[in-house]
């Protein structure tokens, strides 16, 4: 799949933003006054910034409001609802932390749960797609939730707990890579099943249907840059999880900031791989993956 920068930005930033929001909302990081403004401001900037980035890949973003209509069937629509509900519900909480008034804890509880539900909806947009076997696995939501919870804990100055979650994230990433590599074969789709000609014999491409590029080749049959995949995997695990895990244990604002930058770099590498390594079954028709 084509790793569109807008979608990578969206999933990484929003995931981190909503994850951090959950910690703020649940009161796991207690902030007041000016620090509340900074913390909540950062969470909102990440979440909203990511959502705005996602609209830039739309062909007709002026109709984006219509995406709220199909919550009964579409995970993308559910995500839109969850995101807006979270942002609205937590706005008074953020204001309260800053200005200094309290809201009942169940309000914060619902807000925190919704923030995590948003990340879950995002992950389900990818998980539901059967035609991309690498994504169609329960590890995909686990991976997205892992990033949100570990990244949120890092920003939420959770110290040892952040370290624990980041180490778990390293494990999830490694598992997702290992399982993902076997998913295409497990899905059972082949050139023989795609063409239905397997009963005759083994199928290969004799002639492509068109000489130039098209939407399918650009969007779904992305093969550029996979040669560095193995190196990028190591970079993703080390930068997104292991280095920040060590830094989180040491604590301190400067180190946390450094950990955040390293974590983001690793998260971007991991998310780039998430798309670039995902093979769509339509590639079988072109004899490419």
């Amino acid at each position, binding site marked *: 799949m084509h790793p569109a920068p807008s979608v990578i930005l969206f999933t990484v930033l929003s995931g981190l933003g909503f994850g951090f929001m959950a910690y703020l909302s649940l009161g796991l990081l207690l902030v007041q006054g000016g620090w509340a403004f900074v913390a909540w401001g950062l969470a909102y900037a990440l979440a909203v910034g990511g959502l705005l980035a996602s609209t830039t890949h739309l062909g007709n973003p002026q109709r984006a409001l219509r995406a709220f209509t199909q919550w009964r069937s579409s995970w993308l629509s559910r995500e839109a609802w969850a995101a807006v509900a979270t942002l609205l519900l937590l706005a008074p909480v953020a204001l309260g932390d800053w200005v200094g008034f309290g809201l009942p804890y169940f309000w914060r509880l619902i807000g925190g749960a919704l923030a995590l539900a948003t990340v879950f909806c995002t992950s389900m947009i990818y998980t539901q797609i059967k035609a991309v076997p690498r994504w169609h696995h329960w590890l995909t939501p686990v991976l997205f939730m892992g990033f949100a919870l570990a990244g949120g804990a890092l920003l939420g100055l959770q110290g040892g707990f952040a370290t624990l979650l980041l180490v778990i994230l390293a494990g999830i990433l490694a598992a997702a890579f290992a399982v993902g590599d076997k998913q295409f074969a497990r899905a059972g789709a082949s050139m023989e099943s795609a063409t239905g000609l397997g*009963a005759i014999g083994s199928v290969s491409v004799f002639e492509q249907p068109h000489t130039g590029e098209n939407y399918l080749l650009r969007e779904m049959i992305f093969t550029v840059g996979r040669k560095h995949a193995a190196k990028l995997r190591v970079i993703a695990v080390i930068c997104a999880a292991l280095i920040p895990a060590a830094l989180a244990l040491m604590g301190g604002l400067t180190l946390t900031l450094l950990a955040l930058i390293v974590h983001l770099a690793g998260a971007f590498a991991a998310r780039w791989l998430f798309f670039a390594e995902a093979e769509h079954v339509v590639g079988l028709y072109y004899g490419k993956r």
Partner: protein
Amino acid sequence: MTCLPGHTEKKLGLAIDLDTCVGCHACVTACKGWNDQGYGVPLSDQDAYGADPSGVFLNRVHGYQVQPDTGGAAQTINFPRSCLHCEDAPCVTVCPTGASYKRVEDGIVLVNEDACIGCGLCAWACPYGAREMDADAGVMKKCTLCVDRIYNENLPEEDREPACVRTCPTGARHFGDFNDPTSKVSKLTAARGGFDLMPEMGTKPTNKYLPPRPKDQRQEASLLAPLLDIEAKGFAGWLDRILGKI
């Protein structure tokens, strides 16, 4: 609503005969021609006369070589690929805006372009690459089964079928109702063992493909065999005998 209808009155679709398709791409051209002026925005091209042309097509003809496992000659098979109007269409349910829908009356899967935000998720969900985003209009394009032809009373009756079917010079494409067991497409599918593409994806496609008939056995003897045992007669025969004795 992008929930799928549980049942459709008709199941309109195509039966595509891989035995008779000669790979002439006439269906591709006819489809592009009709859909440049009919339903929705025209199918745009980018850099059409330049070095890197690209454009939207709703039908593509692949060419495959199939090597029998038992040995023998490989077969070349022309393979048109377009929307299969699946019963369990994953492209419909993922749509966040309700632009994608499956019609209850005839099962055709369509896109309401006025509601499409161009997110591309439906194209991701389709295993068959049936949907292509229009780079000019930013909306998703797909086969409409020529919904603006098949019910169009302004057209002569013989033209009320999809453009690809109407144009096919070898009659490799058949249009009809798969819900009706007496329809041409149902009978053809039953008689020829029509099959689904990628059944493991669970999409229950409406369109069926008819398999190529078994190929004749390869001739092991020389192609000149009929000429090798010609017995010369008359003058040529006499000459043959005389020359043979020298």
